[in-house]
């Protein structure tokens, strides 16, 4: 019988996931400790949500906001009420808002360009409206932000272990002892002992059926499959908000889905959203107001919605970005070039003879997403520590801070590193931990199986179960059926893999099923509806008296326990 090869490593601090949060964590950790490993399933040079760019970060910019009469406290309150709908880890939100600008100045030190001659604002910053009622989102040159950060990680002295998918945690006496990953190219198990671990593997992006019908044609990175959240749950960390969906019904370019802001967003001063008759449904930014508008049925300042136009027989819907001066067009192209997936979009436009001056871009509501605006993940304290001592979480990985996005990644990554460095300094020798037995069995079974189910079939099954049982007709009975179906899949799939690339996908399937089950269980437990992020057919009303709280779910002695936490 074939046995998977195991390679041992050790370090003081292990950062898992090399996106914005993980890179910032690795940089700060390596400034404070000389034995840091950054493990990434892909390569920090281009991995994560900002792999091909990031053109906007929100924060509190004192010189600008104080002039506009907005205090830090007011901005935090605005986020709490309007972005997080009252349900947020307030101390962490405050920390993010207060220190985002400091981290942006770090990015400038690392080599990112954030100042522009055409701006008349203090500091020559380009600031936009985005989620808040004040101008607080920096527009900057972030196409290569990941390359800049990866360089800073190496310069700070952290070791990068790329193409290692961490999928399990090691614990000893309830405390963190390390992580276990799978080499997506070398096919080995990498067991990394560590005194402190920072998880930053981001969102769960392959749960729901994508509209274009292609598994990898989605808005956020398809490589992100909830590996961190699943691993932390199995290790006993308490997860919150897992039942919520993020921005259901957000619109993007039809089929060739992009991030950024088609048709909303800050970067298209001359852009409008129109129906098939050429009627303007979403006016220009200054007429829509201070905030971008998300959601299927959200009405714009015209009193009409894209969804409403489709239902009234006036579809399709288009973004018409043909307007404005040459300078406006240049600005728009500059912003798209610097936002994630934007460079690919512009390359494709050019290659296929498309031009914003000449062509409208058809829009469509994209598949639901998890995390981000819903903020499902481990509960963290003021130091970014989860409920497992020595285990920290940062960025989209962490639960409880809706809309923290890029500034959440930078600030929490930095904070988690400081906390982890403190922990490592106080901890004695490295210890052996437990927790990888089931993972090794799972891998060895696949290695020794010659025929069975390809991972693609299991992926399609997950898409079906999650989309059918957890979107339109959400209820207790539907969630119970969803849980049953995922458990059936788990017990009956006989995955096969002919190489490490395919075995990596099998491990992703294992984590997606884990996350799906957590979601269904929390869905059954939360007996209310809560805005657009959680609609139940059997409990259509919001119930603040009982449910204005985080719903925690954790494993205790292999039993699932729920707990309510008032934020």
């Amino acid at each position, binding site marked *: 019988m074939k046995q998977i090869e195991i390679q041992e490593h050790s370090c003081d601090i292990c950062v898992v996931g090399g996106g914005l949060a993980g890179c910032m964590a690795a940089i700060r950790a390596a400034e404070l400790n000389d034995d840091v490993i950054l493990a990434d399933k892909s390569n920090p040079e281009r991995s994560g949500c900002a*792999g091909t760019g990031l053109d906007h970060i929100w924060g509190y910019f004192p010189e600008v906001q104080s002039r506009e009469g907005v205090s830090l406290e007011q901005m935090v309150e605005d986020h709490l009420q309007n972005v997080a709908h009252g349900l947020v880890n307030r101390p962490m939100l405050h920390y993010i808002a207060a220190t985002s600008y400091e981290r942006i100045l770090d990015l400038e030190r690392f080599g990112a360009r954030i100042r522009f001659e055409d701006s008349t604002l203090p500091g020559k910053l380009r600031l936009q409206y985005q989620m808040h009622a004040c101008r607080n989102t920096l527009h900057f040159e972030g196409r290569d932000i990941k390359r800049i950060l990866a360089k800073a990680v190496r310069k700070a002295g952290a070791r990068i272990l790329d193409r290692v998918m961490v999928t399990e945690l090691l614990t000893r006496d309830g405390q963190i002892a390390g992580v276990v990953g799978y080499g997506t190219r070398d096919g080995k198990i990498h067991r990394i002992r560590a005194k402190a671990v920072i998880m930053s593997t981001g969102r769960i992006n392959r749960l729901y059926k994508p509209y274009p019908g292609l598994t990898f044609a989605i808005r956020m*990175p398809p490589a992100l499959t909830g590996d961190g959240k699943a691993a932390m749950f199995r290790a006993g960390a308490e997860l919150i908000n897992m039942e919520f969906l993020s921005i259901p019904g957000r619109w993007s370019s039809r089929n060739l889905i992009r991030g950024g802001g088609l048709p909303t967003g800050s970067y298209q001063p*001359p852009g409008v959203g129109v129906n098939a008759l050429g009627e303007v449904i979403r006016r220009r930014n200054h007429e829509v107001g201070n905030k971008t508008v998300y959601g299927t049925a959200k009405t714009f300042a015209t009193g009409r919605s894209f969804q409403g136009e489709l239902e009234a027989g006036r579809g399709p819907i288009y973004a018409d970005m043909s307007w404005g001066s040459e300078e406006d067009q240049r600005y728009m192209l500059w912003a798209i070039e610097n936002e994630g997936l934007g460079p690919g979009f512009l390359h494709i436009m050019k290659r296929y003879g498309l031009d914003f001056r000449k062509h409208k871009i058809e829009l469509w509501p994209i598949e639901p997403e998890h995390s981000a605006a819903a903020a499902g993940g481990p509960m963290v304290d003021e130091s970014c520590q989860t409920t497992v001592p020595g285990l920290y979480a940062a960025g989209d990985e962490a639960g409880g801070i809706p809309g923290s996005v890029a500034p959440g990644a930078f600030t929490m990554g930095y904070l988690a590193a400081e906390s982890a460095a403190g922990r490592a300094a106080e901890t004695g020798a490295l210890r052996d931990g437990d927790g990888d037995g089931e993972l090794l069995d799972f891998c060895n079974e696949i290695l020794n199986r010659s025929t069975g189910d390809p991972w693609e079939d299991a992926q399609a099954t997950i898409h079906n179960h999650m989309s059918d049982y957890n979107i339109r007709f959400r209820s207790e009975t539907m969630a119970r059926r969803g849980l049953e179906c995922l458990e059936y899949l788990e017990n009956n799939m006989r995955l096969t893999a002919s190489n490490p690339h395919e075995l990596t996908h099998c491990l992703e399937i294992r984590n997606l099923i884990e996350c799906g089950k957590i979601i269904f269980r929390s869905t059954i437990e939360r007996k209310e509806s809560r805005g657009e992020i959680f609609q139940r057919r059997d409990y259509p009303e919001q119930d603040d008296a009982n449910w204005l709280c985080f719903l925690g779910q954790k494993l205790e002695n292999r039993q699932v326990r729920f707990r309510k936490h008032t934020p």
Partner: protein
Amino acid sequence: MPPVIDKKLCNTCGICYNICPQDVFSFDRKQAPIIAYPQECWYCGACVVDCPKGAVSLTLPLPLHIVPSPALYGPPGPQERQALELAADFSRSIEGDPAEPDSGQETGGSDAADRQGGKAR
């Protein structure tokens, strides 16, 4: 075949193979990388941006094609020009006489006015 490598331009440096977040390439250091998993491409464009020789381009599978549709753009009239200036003032960090931000109420602009660039206020 999502990424396509022009073998005449490729210098076999392996950067595309090293940076691809989806790991779609295979590479043996002697010849141009092979697209081993074309169906797993995210169309992010990292390989296009990072190729030092400009040897990589993206080709879309049919379901992802953007079917062209003509835009509504026309030469701006005076009202429309003013609206576009307000839009630019609001959306770019240039202070002068910025538009009063709308709180989301219906402004009463007709569709015809919208088509000409929105109702100027």
